[in-house]
Every structure is written in C-alpha cells, then in structure tokens.
C-alpha cells in the first residue's frame, strides 16, 4: 500500500513537473515569438491586441486562431511555432494566476455618469 502511494506520488510529481516545464518553455516562447507585444506579458491585452485571459480559449480553438487569425495578427505556421510549442504557450497562459477582480482594487472605482 505504501509502495502504491509512493508510486502514485512520484507519478503525480512527474506530471506536475512536465506541466511546469511546459509552462516555463511556453513563457519563453510567448516572449521570443512576440506574443507579448500585443497581448501583454500575462495575456492582459492592450490597445494593440485583445486580452487572452481570464477566459482562455480551449486549446483546439486557440490553435486554429493562431494558425489562421482574423484581422491583422500574422498567421503562425508550424514552421515558426510547432504544435508542441503552441501547446507550451497555451500551458503558460493556463498556468497564470487569476488577476484580482476590479471590485477588489481600490484604485479602480466604479464609473458614474453625468
């Protein structure tokens, strides 16, 4: 039983390590391929590109969009961003902690109107 537990823990740690490694390499790719330029380093978006979080697209839809984007985003082929690399980028975005809600930020008061 103890042996089984030890094996399960080791397996889980292995999976966890792989996820962390994928996220780390995804962050590296996210920066080097220039995704951050329009979408920000934590996917928050900007005037130049939409936010990717908090509602991250499922991987399948994400991949379709990156390969065949709408508007002015250039298409990323497998030559410049392989499927494995794209999965890492997605894993990086999925690993990011949630941003605080606007209501919890005192510097973001609710809007009024005149």
């Amino acid at each position, binding site marked *: 039983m103890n042996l089984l537990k030890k094996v399960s823990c080791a397996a889980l740690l292995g999976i966890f390590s792989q996820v962390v490694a994928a996220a780390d390499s995804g962050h590296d790719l996210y920066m080097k391929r220039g995704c951050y330029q329009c979408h920000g380093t934590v996917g*928050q978006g900007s005037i130049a590109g939409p936010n990717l979080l908090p509602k991250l697209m499922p991987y399948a839809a994400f991949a379709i969009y990156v390969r065949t984007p709408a508007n002015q985003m250039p298409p990323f082929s497998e030559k410049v961003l392989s499927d494995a690399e794209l999965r890492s980028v997605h894993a990086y975005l999925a690993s990011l902690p949630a941003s605080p809600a606007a209501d919890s930020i005192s510097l973001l008061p609710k809007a009024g109107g005149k």
Partner: protein
Amino acid sequence: MVAAETMGGMHSGHSEDLPGHVSNPGSDFMVDVLKAANIEYVAMMTSSALRGLQESIAYYGKNKAPELIICPHEEIAVGVAHGYAKMAGKPMACMVHSTVGLMHASMAIYNAWCDRVPLMVIGGNTADATKRRQGVEWIHTAVDQAAMVRDFVKFDDFPGSLQHFAESFMRAQALSMTPPMEPVLILADGELQEVPAEDPKSLKIPKMVEVSPPEGDARSVAKAAAILLAAKNPVIVVDRSARTAEGVGLLIKLAEALNAPVVDQCGRMNMPTTHYLNHTWLKAKLLRSADVILALEVGDLWGVVNTISDTPGRPSKRVAKPDVRVISISTNHLYSKSNYGDIQRYQEAELTMAADAQATMPSLIEAIRKGTTAAQATAIAARKQPMQADFLAMRNAARDAAALGWDASPISTARLSQEIWAQIKNDKWSLVSDPFYVSYWQHRLWDISEYKQFIGGSGGYGLGYGLSAAVGAALACKSEGRIAINIQPDGDLLMVPSALWTLAHHKIPLLTLMHNNRAWHQETMHLQRMGTRRDRNAESWREGTLIEEPFVDYAMMAKSMGVWAEGPISDPALLGPAIKRALAVVRSGLPALLDVVTQPR
C-alpha cells in the same frame, strides 16, 4: 507706436560715436515687436546667426516677456513651443540657428503643422553676401532658407527692413492664429539685427489683431440641422473640435440637443470622459449602425468611414453603412498643401462646410433647437436612457480590463495610470502626453472634464515631441499652479534627453513617469509582423527594436541633468509611494522623473 516710444529709451546715446560700438541695434526694435505681439517666452538654442536678437532679449528686453527658455537642441525648442501653445492658447516664439538649426528644427515644425498648432519660428540668415565672413557664415546662410520648411509652414518671410520685420511678424502671428492654426517662419537678417536702426522714430509696430474664425453659412447650417434631426442613429466624431474651454461646452450642448453619442479621436480635449454621451470606445459599433455622421475638425474623414488593413495586399473596406449621410465641418477644407500626406485620403461628404467647428456650433445648436419637432423631441429624449446605460457599461468594461495583469511586473500601463490618478485627481492637473502609447487608459478611466486637462498628441508622430512638448505645456501650467503629468515613452526620450536639462535649468515643475518598455515598441510589432508573415525567423524582430544590452538608466540620466529622479521601478507595489515622493518635488516647483519599467502598451 511702441517702437517710436521705446526705441532709444534704453540707450544713453554715448556709444554711437565711439568706434566699434553700436548703441541702437535693429534687434532692440525686434524685441519691441515681440513684446507688442505679447510673446511671453522664446525657446531657443543659442545661435550666432541670431546673436543680435538674443543679446537684445537678454539686455534690452531684460529677459522678461519675452523670456528666453534655453534648449540644447532646435528640435526641443520647437517642441517646447508646440506644447506651450496648446496649453497657453497662444503662440510662443522659438529661435533656431540659420541653415543647420532650421534643419534640426524641421521635424518638430512638421509635428506642429500636422497638429494645427500656432508657433512663431524665428530663423537667422544674412541676405547680403558681402557681409558674410568667409567659411562658416557662408555655409550657414541660404538664398531661400525657408524653402526647406515651406511645405509645412503657413507663411514665411525674410524682411529687408525693420519696418518690414514689424509688419511681417504681426501678419505672421495673425495667420498662425487663424484656424487652421499653423506654424510660421520669420527670418531675421543678421545685418538688420546688428546695425543701428535708421530713423527709429519713424518705425511703427502694427497692433496685434485677432482674426475671426470662419463660421458655416446659415443655409448649410440649417441643412445640417435638418439632416441630424431626421437621423435615427446620429454619431458625432471629433478630433480637434475644441480650441478653448468654450468649445467643450458647445460640444456638450450639441450632443445633448440630439442625444447623439460622441466619438473623440483625442486630437484635443473635446468631450468630457465623464459625460454619458462620450462613447469613444464604442466607435466600431456606432459607426456600423450610424445613419448620419457629423465630423467636426476630423483630419482623416476617410478613416472614419473606411478602414485599410495591414495585411498583404492592404485591402480596404467600408466601415460605415453605404448610405450613411456624412457632414463635415472643418477648416481643413480651407487650406492644404500637396507634398506631405497629412491631408489624408479623400472622402466626399454630403454636406461640407469649410468652417471652424467651434465657431459654427452655436448656430448649429440654435438651428437644431429651433427645428426640433415634437416627434423628434420625443425620439431624442428616448435615446437618453440607452445612451447612459451604454456609457456606464463602456466605462465599467474598461475598469474590468484594467484589472487584468494588475499585479504584473513589468508594471501594467493601467496600473501606472491609476497609481497616478489616485494622487492627482483632487488637484488642478493636466495630462501633457499622448495616451496612444499607453492604451488610452487615462481617457478610459480618468475623469477628464476640463479643456486644459489634456492637450492631444504630436500630430506628426515625429519622435522627440513627447518630452519637448511636455516641457512647454508644463511651462504654461506653472503660472496657474497646474500639475503637468507626462507619461514618457522611452524611445521618445532618447531622441531629446537634453530637454531634461531645460526642465532643471528653468525650474519647470513637471511630473514625468517613464513608460519604459525598453523598446521602440511600435516598430517591434511591425517587425514581428514581417518575420511571421514571411514564415521565416520569427525572432528577427529583436534586432534593432529593443533598447537593451544595456538597459538605459533614465533616473541616472535625469539626475545628471539636475532633475530629481528615482528608479527603475518594476514592482507595482512600490510605485504609489514613489509617485508620492515625486509629487512632493513637483509641488515644490521642481521637475521629477520616475523610471517605471512597464508592459509594452
């Protein structure tokens, strides 16, 4: 008459007869002209071609109204005048050395041209070739010196006498201040500056005049009112609609008379961000459904109705409905030149008024009020509640967007914006930088309600405008105790770093927060688009667009020129306290700079 009264007043008369002395130089009279034209400041890079005038301002004019603002580069001098004019509502002068100085200044003059800003550029030249010393003085003269900037000044002249100088300066100022407002250039002849004024009592300085801006004619105004009243979904688009605080009030009245949403392109402070009819960030949706578009001083009307994509082939498409009725009121219809593209692509409008929008609004508002039927009044009133709801949804969507990446490092531009806002919102303040580079957070989140709280952008997108214009705007803010806030892109600062010295030297209180994304980021995005679109090295964009290896220490740079500074700051938790310390310096009457390492946009 000022000249007749003042010429000679400062002079003892003793030195006229002494060999080698000149007691009544022509440049003293030129100072009288500047004073009569109510020129408060002259930004300048010291110049041998203008040495006579510089000495006269310093001694004869006692360096007061006009006062010299010393700039280490002619581009800065013109940029300072650019920012000052927009904040002060009147031009200042800038002195630029002959050929090479005017070449340095030319980009900044072009910015002011594109931004429809009045400023008086004074250049040096010597017409009589026999009076030029060999070597440099020949190199620094030209047969037609103004030719190099003639495509982007409204008027230029090279007066041959002092009386000519007085008349031409006053004409130039009147033209510069008449919408469409533009820079003008007067060349001050070297000999005219330095030899004694002949018969000074005969010289007369014409009075400074204010030229009435052109208003739309009654027939066109009535037609515009009828089209707007018949509209179900009218949209008002503004760019440089307001010239003064009165222009803001008029736009509010116009929009409220129709309950029509306003899209502000932020060329000036046109429409309060707090008003329920400011729907700027709903632009795409509004333009798709508009049946009437009223464009007020919009430079790029084609770009309102259509769009062109930065994709291979550059396809363009119409954004607005095919049958949208377009009304354009702008002084751009009165005056243009061919060579440079700030004229933008041609877009026809059903009704075009070659008129100043602010001057035309009172009659348009009146025509709408008088022409509104009971049914139309009911329909207009019914639009109010949906407009209020859409406005609140728009503002709160911006608030939600600002929360994303709130704790990120580098610091998000939304966080940067709100950390400032929290500490200045109860003060008298002005944003004197272009919000384009920081995702327009100030216009999306701040309560910008007064004309002087925002001055628009560069006009020509020529780098080096940012800090230079902020210096000029802060100079104008100083006298009224207004805190000037400059969110400063790093690439722009690297063009004109010595403007920091001008701030320190003249003790101009300006709060500068670096938007230090360590890149020429607009180009970063362009290059990434190229590499990826060409399906080859997707990292080639790094070459030539990143400001790294080494990073620039902007705080050290500022300190070296006498400006209080801290940074780099990349932890968002440290930003608020740093702003507090910087503001204490600014409130004491001095400039301060915080180097903030930021997200790219």
